[in-house]
């Protein structure tokens, strides 16, 4: 019951693969890492296996555009 309460308040909420993918992608794009490295890191994460085929097909130039946009417009939560 305590675990359910904690999950309800997001303290131990299990993240879905989608949420993990979104969190990880934003951090990697903000980091300025090269697009090939971003893809490699995402592909090494077994929790994101549902997204691996999509990740493999990502265009490096456009991933760089994504990095630029997150760097320019992405605001960290205070």
């Amino acid at each position, binding site marked *: 019951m305590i675990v359910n309460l904690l999950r309800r308040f997001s303290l131990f909420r299990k993240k879905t693969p989608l949420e993990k993918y979104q969190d990880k992608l934003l951090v990697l794009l903000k980091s300025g890492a090269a697009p090939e490295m971003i893809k490699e890191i995402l592909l090494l994460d077994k929790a994101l296996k549902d997204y691996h085929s*999509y990740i493999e097909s990502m265009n490096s130039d456009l991933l760089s555009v994504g990095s630029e946009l997150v760097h320019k417009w992405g605001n960290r939560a205070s």
Partner: protein
Amino acid sequence: MFRMWYGLKMEALHKPSKGVAWFSTAETYATHSPLLENNYLEALEWTIDSRSFQPLPERDRKILHDMASRKKLTGHGVHYSVLSVGGKEIRERWLSKLKNDPLLNHYAHLSVHFGFSTGRGFQDGAPLPLPFTAETLDIGRKNLEALAHIVPCRIGLENLALAFSPQDVSRQGEFLDKLLEPFDGFLLLDIHNLYSQSYNFDMPIIDLAKTYPLQRVREIHISGGSWSVGKTGKRIRRDTHDHCVPQDVFAALEEIIPLCPNLEFIFLEQLPSALQTDDQRNQFQEDYMSLLKVSG
């Protein structure tokens, strides 16, 4: 004779209203006020979160309210992250501010962006693409439901320019249609966004447009953009909302309008930062006149 008159009248009744995206800045006012004063602007789009929902200056308030009174004001939100799983508190704060928007009951319709921009530690930013899966569809519908609960008018989504993968290009239309279905939502079709994807992924723009649910299109955007060069040496089209509208975009607009039976508004967009000089403002006004000519 009556039939000819009736046909022409029906055609006139169904012509979409043309206008511009309005921002509360000196540059916007300097550029758009001549168009407004000479009755060239039939409608306006207001980016509802462009000032973080802060109260409007009196001048802008009067202009927007006047357009709203004629049912020719649309609302557009940039920072509601429709496809984000995390950031629930951020979305709730955004909706709470929207509830207090004095124009909320006056928008002809209201759109937000397809994509996600929030996640752990990120509160807003430019929207990014996501693959079309059962999970992404489910989260998108839940977030749209929360929006529809607050907004008294029809809600819609704008298509995204940025695509990471060919999947993002080929399936965005289908994804948008499925997201909008439960709400009878509308599509805001940004033709420059289509143009960017068409160039970047080498797909003819009209073929790409036809993968979208064009019967849902009630609003069209056109704008300019820019070029950059990727590390591979390939030119990339960027949706930067600056510079003139390419001729290819006007040509696509002319072909796409007849494919959208429910089209109500067409807006020319340009960021205020790209309206600093007389040349830039004159170019914008020329683009607007071209829009009026192309769209009839």
